[in-house]
Structure formats: C-alpha cells, structure tokens
C-alpha cells in the first residue's frame, strides 16, 4: 500500500513514516501543501495522510484542488485542529477521515486500512485472487494453503498485482505504486523482483499466476470459473 504523508513538523513526519513502513506501507513524505500537490500529480497513492496547518498551502486547500481535478484518492486529515467547524470543513471539502493530534498509531494505521478497504470496495482486510489470499494487516500471503515467506517489497508488489486481477500493469505503474517517489530505479529492477516472486509462488503446482505481457508489463492472471 502506498501512502502520501504530508506534515510540516519534521520530527512528526519522520516518526509517522517510520511507523507506517513497519506496516510494509510505501511512504512518500512531503512537508508542505504545494509539494503534496506535485506528488499527487505525478504518482498515485492508496491513502493520503494530510496535516492542515502548513506553510505555502494548507491541507484544506490541497484537498480542494485535488477534488476539483477529479482525484478520488482517500484523504485522512491528521491535525491539531479539534473544533467541530474544522472537522466539518475537512469533510465537506472532500476529506474521507479526520484524526486529531495527538493520536495513537494503532488508530491511525487502522483508519488507513479502513480507507483503503473502502476505496477498493473490499469487505475485509483479506484480498482473495484465485488461489492466493493476502492479509494486509498481518502481512501474510497464503497460496493454496501454503504460507509464503516474502520481503516487505515483494509483499507490496504481490499485493498491488493481486488487487488488479486480469489487468495489465505497466512497469511505470508498478513503480509508481510500489516504490517510493524518489527511488533511484534502474531499468530491470521490477523484472528482478518479479522473477523472485515467481520463484516463491512456485510452491504449489499452480499455473503461472504472474504473466508477462510483451512490450507492456505484467498481469496477475486468474482463470474465470465458469
């Protein structure tokens, strides 16, 4: 899962990012509203965690711009503003959730999962794609009863592929969604990860789940049961 974290207090930004990375989330950090808009225009995110009082452009304005452009990325306001009218303003401008500082990490994480669940139209945290079941909260992937041992990045990659069953994803799309914004990528980085992932998925004699689409990218293929 890829998160954009917008928070002008550097210490808080760092510690939230650290904590979200523990959850195997991919986190991009930015420190003001204008920067956040740049990130949102160039990359796609599952959830945006947004402070309100920030230099250059406040969080409310960022979300207003975002929604005007038709961007539906779920936004969670994380702010010290606890007045009712601030909360209402946040929701009315297009925010999806509102959490007041100081907060508990567990709650923040649970809310982020809830937002992603809702935007992906999932009923619970288990993602089922053919023989594969992924639980994002406990970071476990089970393939036809076999538990897979994956690194954080592999898990994120598999999660992204499996949440787009039968949809061909380009290498750029995968890069945007799984790797952090400022990641120094080299040409065959994704190919290497896919190769490793395929090897680990080989435990059961399943037909090839991850298929290469020549010249385009990869697809997570699940046979439709008629």
């Amino acid at each position, binding site marked *: 899962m890829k998160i954009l974290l917008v928070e*002008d*207090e*550097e*210490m*808080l930004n760092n*510690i*939230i990012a*650290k*904590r979200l990375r*523990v959850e195997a989330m991919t986190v991009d950090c930015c*420190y*003001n509203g204008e920067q956040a808009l740049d990130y949102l225009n160039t990359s796609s995110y599952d959830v945006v965690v947004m402070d309100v*009082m*920030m*230099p*250059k452009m*406040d969080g409310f304005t960022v979300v207003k711009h975002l929604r005007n452009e038709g961007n539906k990325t779920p936004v969670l306001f994380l702010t*010290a*503003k*606890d*007045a009712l009218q601030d909360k209402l303003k946040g929701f009315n401008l297009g925010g999806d959730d509102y959490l*007041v*500082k*100081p*907060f*508990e*990490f567990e709650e923040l994480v649970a809310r982020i999962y809830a937002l992603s669940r809702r935007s992906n139209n999932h009923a619970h945290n288990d993602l089922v794609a053919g023989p594969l079941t992924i639980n994002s909260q406990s970071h476990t992937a089970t393939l036809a009863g076999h538990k897979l041992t994956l690194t954080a990045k592999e898990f994120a990659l598999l999660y992204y592929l499996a949440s787009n069953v039968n949809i061909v994803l380009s290498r750029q799309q995968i890069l945007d969604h799984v790797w952090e914004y400022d990641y120094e990528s080299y040409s065959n980085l994704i190919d290497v990860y896919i190769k490793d992932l395929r090897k680990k998925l080989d435990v059961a004699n399943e037909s090839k789940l991850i298929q290469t689409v020549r010249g385009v990218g990869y697809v997570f293929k699940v046979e439709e049961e008629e």
Partner: protein
Amino acid sequence: MFSKLKKKSNQSKSDAPHQTAYSALYKAFFSKDEKGNYSNPFKRLPLSIKITGWYSIFLLLMLLMLSVFILQFTQLWEDSEMRSTLQSRVINSADNLSRFRPFQDGVFTVIYTENGVAVKGAIPDGFPPESMLSPHHISEVTVRNSTFYYYDSPISDPAFHGWVRGVLPATSVSRTTNIMLISLLLGGMTFLIVGAVGGYWLIKRGLGPIRLLTKTASDIGKEQDLSKRIKPPIETYDEISSLARTFNSMLASLENSSVREKQFSSDVSHELRTPIAVIQAESDYGRSYIASIEEAKESFEHIFQQSRFMTAMVTQLLDIARLDNMESIKKEPLSMSQLMEDVAKSYVRICEDKNIKLTTNIEPNLSLIGNLPFLKRAVGNLIDNAIKFTNDSISLQLVKEDDRIKVLVTDNGAGISQDDLNKIWDRLYQVDPSRTKSSEQGLGLGLYFVHNIVKLHNAKATATSIPGESTSFILDFPAADA
C-alpha cells in the same frame, strides 16, 4: 383551596413579561426568596406597584387637603350667607310687619313686645326663650348640643314698640356642608381609583422596556449566548433606550473579548497538541519497534526537544496570564540607559554565535519610571524576535525626543507586510504559520508580552517595516522628570 388557585395563577403568569399587579403582589408577599426566607415583602415589590403606591398616597393627601380647604371655605361662605339671610329676614320684618313670616328660608321669626312677651311667630324647639337681646350682632347659643344663631331688631312701626327676633338652628346650616362632604368623598374616591389604575397602566407601559431588558439579560445569563442583543424601543432616545444601548454595547465588548478568549485557547491547544503528538508518536513507536540504541537516542532527543518547547510555551503562557491579571506593577525611577547597556551586553555572545552584527546607539543618562525586570524582558523579547527574523544585523537604539524616551530595535530581515503589522501584537500571532524550524520559531507570545508590559508603563509600542529591507520596533515611554 384558595391558596392553590392563587398559586396556579401565579405560576401560569410568572413567565409572561406582563405579569399582573395581583400576581406581583402575591409573589412579593407569599413566595420565598432565593434563600427560602420570607424577606421584607416591600423590598420585593415590583417598581410599577411601588410607584403607583407612592403616588396614590400622595394623591390621597392632596385630596384630603383640598377637601379640608373646600369644606372650610364652604363653611365660611355658608356662615356669612346664613348671617346675611338671618339679618335681612329680621330687618325686613321689623321694617314692615306686613312682610312678617313665622318661618321662611330656614329662619324662625318671632315678634316680642318691649316687655319681652312673644306676640306672634314661632321659635324652634329647644331654643331658650330667655336669651339676652342681641340687637347689634348675631349671637350664638348652645343648649344640649343644638346650636342656634339669633338676631334682634327693634320694630320701626311707631304704633308698636317691640322687637323682631330671628332664630336659625345650626343643624340646617351643616346640611349643605354634608352634601358637599359626601360629594367630595365620592368624587375623591373615584378620582383616586381612576388615578391609581390609570397610573399603574401608564407606569407599566413605561417600564415595559425595562422588563424586556431584564428578560434578555437573564436569558443571556441562562443560555450563555453573548450574541443576543436587546431591541431598544424604536426611535426613542429616552433613558430606557439609552440604557438598552449601553447594555448592548457592553454585550458587544463582552462578546468580543469572549471570542478572542476562545480563539486564544483554541490556538494554545493547537500549539500544545503538536509537540504532544510528536512525544506520543515517538514513544509509541519506540516501545514497540526500536531495535538499536542509536535509534532510541534519536527518539529521546526528539522527545526532549519537544518537551523543552512545551516548557517554554507553558512558562510564557503563565507569564502572560499573570500579566493579564495585573492592573498595575511596581514602578520606580530607573536608568533606561543602564538597562539597555546591560541587555545589549547579554546578547553580544548570542549574536556572535549566529553571525549577527549587533550595533548599539544608547544615549546616556536617560531615566524613566518603570519596573526593571519587566522592561528587561520586553527589550529582550524584541531582540529575540529580531534575531529570529534578521538577515545579518540588528541595531539597538535609545534616544530622547522632546519628553519621550524611545527604544528602537531594528533588523534587516524580510520585513512585515502592512496587514500583518496590525496583528503582530496579538497573542499567538505568527506572520508565517510554518513551524518547520520549530526550535527557531517563537510561539507568537513574545510581542504580546511586550505589548502588555508597555501598556502597564503608559507607553506605546509600534512597529514599522520596509518589506525586503528592515523592520523596526519602537517603544515610546514618557521620560521621568529629572
């Protein structure tokens, strides 16, 4: 049963703005006060009833005085009328005996011979026949509670020597007076009742706006809604409407200060929440996920910095709370030149560390009346502020202009826009809401503190700025008479 009924009517009307005089009276005499005691009921009577009562008493006194006067006058008039009737009847008869009537116009007439023997006529019952002759004036004789007036006149007929005596019983005299008295009593009563009722109605109408005022005030007290206003009586400029206006302007200033207070506490809560959020997040993360001692040290460093920041903020808030409650401070003559030199000295090192050039231009031997520690803090806060925003130099000046002593702190930073200049003395105001340099950035309380100190010294604090070039803060004190 009766008392129940009374209570009911009292309850049903107690909320209505126009309570009846009856229920008001009932309330004053039969209900308990806040402490549950029956206090002096006259103190709790509504003003309208009190006024009506007082002027009714006054009216009654006036009426009594008038009645006494009228009665007295009538009596005098009656008396003289009676005397002239008596005299004219008697003289008339004496002049010409053919006009003699034993009883006419309430006067009994008798003809006596010279020997005092009654020849003709009648005397009223009870009149003593042996009364002395009264030929020159009207005499009065009282026998067994009945008073008679009588008058004698010699008969001028040459053929008959004798007297004509006229007697008038006093009872018939007071009959007119009695009628007068009764009509006065009835008229007075009517007048009094009409006056009291009409007056009560008028006073009630006149005091209506006061009741409205009271109701609004008590509503505001109950609902804590300071945005309410009293509707003053339209287009009138009497005492009550000016009272309503005064009340409204008081409400407006109360509302204003309450809004500012709310804003301040919301700002403070925001400022305190951010460091708490960092502390909580760092420690929450630390207890579950920190693996290395280096990482833990960094985490503790963050927690420490944020708690220092909070301590500074709480200290400043307490200072300001203390200063806000202070109406005057201890002031004594002090050398402002010395104070400025001391403050400048204490900042030399700090400015050197930050590569800021500190220039001073302090006129010697300038003194004013003030509080030394507070003034030091004020000047210090201005320099702290300048250090935060300056580019590379700060100038500190103390000059005397006429009978004013001016402190000028000038930096060559980015400057402040005109809009912001008006707000910088407010609590928690920051030109840039960014807190990215949280250790460098102040809390927005420093200048507010300066403003309050300066106010307690009857001085003025102003700021001027040339955007992109410099900002000057000026404290303008009255000089002490040397």
